[in-house]
């Protein structure tokens, strides 16, 4: 089996935020594959290899999911729920990345077995710092699960 570094799935409706996040991850030195989907529906298609993402070789199960809460249509929490309900997918660490500081949201995410919860800081430097730490922890320090 050829080692393939695990990819990151970024679910973010705000294009600018997605761009900033990817920029920050790259800047942190991570060259792994990062796929971005703009809503929950597409995220689920991607993860369950449905629709245009049906080719599992082309769209393998990611090693980390960065998930925003506020999404058009199917929202982040719904996506999280689906991931954690699936026997295979639930192994994938899901980091919530959101501007929401609502305790209800925090509660709901951990209630559906989110692996981490991060808020997007307003300041550029802080944002970059946070993403760098996230990448460092989940992609380097953390031992990801073994996936098929």
């Amino acid at each position, binding site marked *: 089996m050829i080692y393939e570094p695990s990819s990151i799935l970024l679910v973010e409706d705000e294009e600018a935020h997605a761009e900033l996040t990817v920029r920050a991850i790259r800047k942190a030195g991570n060259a792994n594959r990062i796929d971005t989907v703009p809503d929950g529906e597409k995220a689920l298609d991607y993860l369950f290899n449905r629709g245009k993402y049906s080719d599992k070789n082309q769209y393998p199960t990611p090693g980390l999911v960065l998930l925003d809460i506020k999404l058009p249509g199917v929202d982040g929490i719904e996506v999280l729920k689906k991931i954690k309900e699936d026997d295979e997918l639930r192994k994938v660490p899901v980091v919530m990345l959101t501007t929401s500081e609502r*305790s209800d949201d925090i509660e709901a995410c951990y209630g559906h077995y989110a692996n981490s919860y991060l808020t997007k800081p307003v300041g550029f430097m802080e944002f970059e710092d946070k993403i760098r730490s996230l990448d460092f922890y989940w992609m380097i320090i953390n031992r990801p699960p073994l996936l098929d």
Partner: protein
Amino acid sequence: MYRDNVAFLLLISRSMKNHPVNIILPLVIFLTLSSITIILWQRYLDHDEEIIRRHTQAMAEQVRVRLEDFMEERLSSLEVLVERWVERRPPDFSYTRYRQFAETYFKHYPGFQAINWVDREGFIRWVYPEEQNYASKDKSLRNHPEVALRDSFARAETSREYVVTPCVTLFQGSLGFATYWPLVYNGKLQGYLNGVFNIRSVVESRIGKTLLDEFRLILYEENRLIYQNTPGKALTTSSRSVRASREVHFRGKTWRLELEPQEITAKAGSAAYLGLENPRHLFFLIFGLTLSTGLSFLLYSFMRRMQMYQAVRDQALHEVNERRQAEKALREAEEKRKTLLATIPDIVMQIDPDRIRTWCNNAGYAFFGEDVIGKKGDYYFVGEQDTYQKLQPLLDGREYAAYIESWQRRRDGQPRLLAWWCRRLSNDRGQVMGAICTARDITDQRKLEQEREALLKELSDKNAELESFVYTVSHDLKTPVVTIEGFIGALKEDFGKLLGPEGEKYLRRISEATQKMEGLINDLLDLSRIGRLSEQKTEISFTSLAKEAVIALDAPIKERRITVVIPENMPSLYAEKKRLGQLVDNLVGNAVKYIGEDNPSPRIEFGAEKRGDETVFFVRDNGIGIDKMYFDKIFKIFQRLPSARKIDGTGMGLTIVKRIVELHGGRVWVESEVGKGSTFYFTIGNKED
């Protein structure tokens, strides 16, 4: 019935304790009657005695007469004999003649001891009857041993007259007396006829034996006892003696006779005195005393009975009185109850076990109409209802009370919601007699409640909607801010060199504006959170809260050289710690912000004071102060003072403070003077609230 009797007896015995039976009157009666009995008895005795006395007197008289007659007869006979003796011429003093006379006399006149002839010399020559009087024959009277006899004879000799001797012991030995009859013829004393009497013979030949058995007879001659029929027994000396005395006179002799009934004299003493020896007397006494005792006892019983009846009557009167008072109290209570029930605006209704309305107050008539009594409850029901099901446990005796809400028709036909509070009504045997209910028309109240609830729900919904809106807006606002900030950073990083100083300045302006917007958004988020989020309230020391707030603002405080005064041991607050921290932070932050740039001795002071029941906390500064016209305005959202233009701020700090305080049931207000400083006061509701 039995119980009644027992109760009656108990009642009487209780009453009798208060009325001790008067024993004095019966006692007095007893004593009086006894005394009367004794007096009567005494009089009875006296009467008896009187009879005896009279009898004795009569007997004594008889004895006297008999003795006097007897002696007169004997002496007259002797006198006749003397005359007959000398009537012959010459007188015949022959023994033969004497003997003839004496024999005849002795035979015909019993009672003589002897009839003697005495010669001139005083010798007793002839004696008749000789065999009995032999001792006296030929004895000389002149030499008689008895002086009295000798003297008498001498007197007869001298006087030649009849002489009788005192009683003396005769020659014969017995007690008696003699009579001398001188026989004178032709002036010459011829001798003496001598009649000798034995007293015993005299008495016993003349006084019947019966009398002598019945009475004691005693004869005295000049205090000398000359006869007694019961020798050796003295007469009674008692004052009660019924003795009779008489003087017996005959020819020169006087005797005193004493007569006394044998019975009394024989049984003299206390027994005789009391008459106890006589069963008749004793019976009288005993009968009298028994009668007195009986009467007294009867009287006592009668009085006791009277007292008992009196006690019963008193008790009855007392009870009647009590009942009268009770009735009066009852009437008053009834009047009071009527008035009370009339004044009650609620309906008061009594129903019987069949749910028929049997009684109601004025409010009841006013509501249901004048014909309400006698109607069943369901007559007034409007629509389906469970009133009877709810009432059933009460009428079955399973429950004491019930609360029922029921739609019922008012007299004007309008359906009204009545709240019924019902209580079971039982008689003293525990039988359910129905129920007493009060009812209140709660239609309007219910309507109001429902309206209020609807309003409250609407308000709460609106509030939630608003908060959700604020939150969403804040969140959505934050997203572009993150983007702007992010790209400013990226721009600087990637194209910083191409921008030049002017470009960087513009970028800085954009960044500042973005940060200000972020501050606004954060405050808005905070504000929206205050209503939505809450944590457990705890005891928090105001002193430590103040210290924490000052530490957080350490940098500006040091920079401005502000003196901070935090008293130790300030009272604690019972509140949500995070919110209270936010509140104090805001107040201290404001104080620092508005301390005044040219303030020579800036100072911030914390404090707490007791005002009435509540504790008032304050944060005081000597900063720029606030005009009175803004005191209310500063607590409103986005309101900032004209003087604060140059100072950073979102205009939400005091709004947040106010919301926190209000959420804790407290108040916040300010006292301030422009140029002198401001004091912000707040209170926090009590722990119990």
